[in-house]
C-alpha cells in the first residue's frame, strides 16, 4: 500500500532534514515542495530549513490502525504548528496518550517511520516529541 523505494527517495532529503517551501513574494511557507504559491500564485518558491520546534495545534490517538502500522499502535498523531507558523502532520513520540495537550511545546525527533515489507527497505522521517524544560 505504501510507496515503493524510488518514491520514498524522491522526498527523503526533505523528510530527513525537515526542509520546506517558502514563497519569496508573500512569505507563505509549506511543508511539501510546491512550484506555485497557494496564496499569491507566485512561482518564486525557495527551499528553506523549517524550524525544529513548535506547538500542538490538534491531536488524536489512533486506535484503528492502517495495514502498514499493524501491531504498532495506539499512537498519537498531531498537526504541529512550527515556530514560523508552518503546519505539518506528524506522530508524537516519547509521550503517553494521556499527557498530550493542545498547545504543548514539541521538538523534532528523527525516527523510523516504517518498512516496505519484512525484507523491504526501512524508511525514516520526522516525528515530534515533548520539549522537556531543562533548568
Amino acid at each position, binding site marked *: *500500500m*505504501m*510507496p515503493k523505494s524510488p518514491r520514498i527517495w524522491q*522526498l527523503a532529503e526533505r523528510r530527513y532534514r525537515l526542509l520546506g517551501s517558502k514563497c519569496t513574494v508573500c512569505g507563505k511557507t*509549506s*511543508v*511539501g515542495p510546491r512550484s506555485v504559491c*497557494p496564496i499569491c500564485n507566485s512561482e518564486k518558491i525557495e527551499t528553506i530549513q523549517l524550524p525544529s520546534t513548535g506547538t500542538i*495545534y*490538534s*491531536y*488524536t*490517538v*489512533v*486506535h*484503528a*490502525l*492502517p*495495514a*502498514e*502500522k*499493524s501491531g504498532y499502535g495506539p*499512537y498519537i*498523531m*498531531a*498537526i504541529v504548528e512550527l515556530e514560523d507558523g508552518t*503546519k*505539518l*502532520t*506528524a*506522530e508524537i513520540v516519547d509521550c503517553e*496518550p494521556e499527557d498530550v495537550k*493542545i498547545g504543548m511545546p514539541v521538538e523534532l525527533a528523527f525516527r523510523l*517511520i516504517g518498512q516496505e515489507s519484512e525484507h523491504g527497505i526501512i524508511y525514516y*522521517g*520526522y*516525528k515530534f516529541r515533548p520539549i522537556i524544560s531543562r533548568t
Partner: protein
Amino acid sequence: MRDVAVIGVGMTKFGERWDKQLRDLFVEAANEALKDANIGRDEVQALFVGNFSAGSFVGQEHVAPLLADYLSLKSKPAFRIESACASSGMAFNLACMAIASGIYDIVMVGGVEKMTDVSVPEITSVHAKAMDVEWESFFGLTLPAAFALIARRHMIQYGTKPEQLAMVSVKNHRNAAKNPLAQFQFEVTIERVLASPIVSDPLHVLDCSPITDGAAAVILCSADIAKKYADTPIYVLGFGVASDSIALHDRSDITTLGAVVKASRQAYKMAGIEPKNIDVAELHDNFTITEIISYEDLGFCEKGKGGLMIQEGETEIGGRIPVNTSGGLKARGNPIGATGVAQVVEIVQQLRGEAGKRQVSGAEVGMTQNIGGSGSTCVVHIFGRQRR
C-alpha cells in the same frame, strides 16, 4: 442552459453483500432505476458512474465500460468519476451539466463500491489515499484520525461535547431503523455510542460510518421532456462544487470546511433560495463531527452552534430542517462511490412523498451535500418538486 430532472431512482440493500460482486450490485440498482423511470435501456444515451477504488478493493480498474457492458448499454459512452467519498455526487454533477449543455437528453448516473472483500486495516489504508499520501498518510494519519483532529479543535474552539457528536449517531440510527435498505436498522443510545471502542479519539466506532457494499442509480433527463416519463419529476434547482487543500494542515482553520461553504453558496444562488427554505437534507456524516460542522458551513445555524442544533432536535424528522432521514452514511451505510447518488435517491423519494415511515410531511425543497477526503472536495445539489 437547460433544466434537469430526475425521473427514476434505484438502490440496492446496503450492507455486507458477500454473495454479490461489484458488477452485480451496480446492475441491480441500475435496473431498478430504469424500471422506476419506465424507460428502456436503449433510451439511455450515456452512463456516469462514481467509484472510489475498485482497483484496491476488488482489483478491477476501468469500471465504467465494465458496468455499461453488464448493463447492456451497447457501446454507449461510459464515464468513471473518482472524488473519494464524493465520487458519485461529482458524477451526478457532471451528468447534470451534460444534460444542461444539450449534448444528451437522457443519462444514467450511478455509484458503486464493493468494500468487504478486503480486511479492515487494508480498507483503512485505502481510505487514507483520499488525503495527501506523501505528507499525511505516510506519517500515519488515517481518515478517521483527520476528522478526529477536526473534532478536537471544534471542541476546544466552540465547546462541542462528545455527547453532542453521539446525538448525530443516535438520530441517524433512529432514521435508518425506518429504512428497509439501510445497513443498520436498529437504534443506539448516547451511552452506547460513548461506550463503543475508540477508533481515533474523540471518535468512537459509533461516530464513524461503516464499511459497506452497495450501489445506487438514477435517471436524469432534460426538464422539458420529464413529464413524459414521470408523474412527479424532481427538478435540479441548483448546484455548487468546490475544492480545498488536499492536506488538512494546509488550512488556516480546520473547524470550517471551506469547500462546503463555497459549494453551498453557489448552489443557493443558482437555486435562488436560502438555507431556511430547505425542507429536508442528506448531509455527509462520514463521521458525526462532519454533520455538525456541515450544519454550520451550510448556513443552517451560526458557526460554532452545530452541537446545539443537534441537541435541540432541530434536525430530527419533524424538526426545523430534518437531516439524513435515510440514516445517512452513518447508519444507511457508506459504500464510498455509491454514497452521493444514494443521497439523491433519498431526497427524490422524500420530495415525491414516497419515503414511507420516514417521510417529511410536505417536503418541497431538498439538498444533498457530498464530501471527499478530509473536505478537499464538496458538491452540493438542491432539488425541488416545482421547476424553478
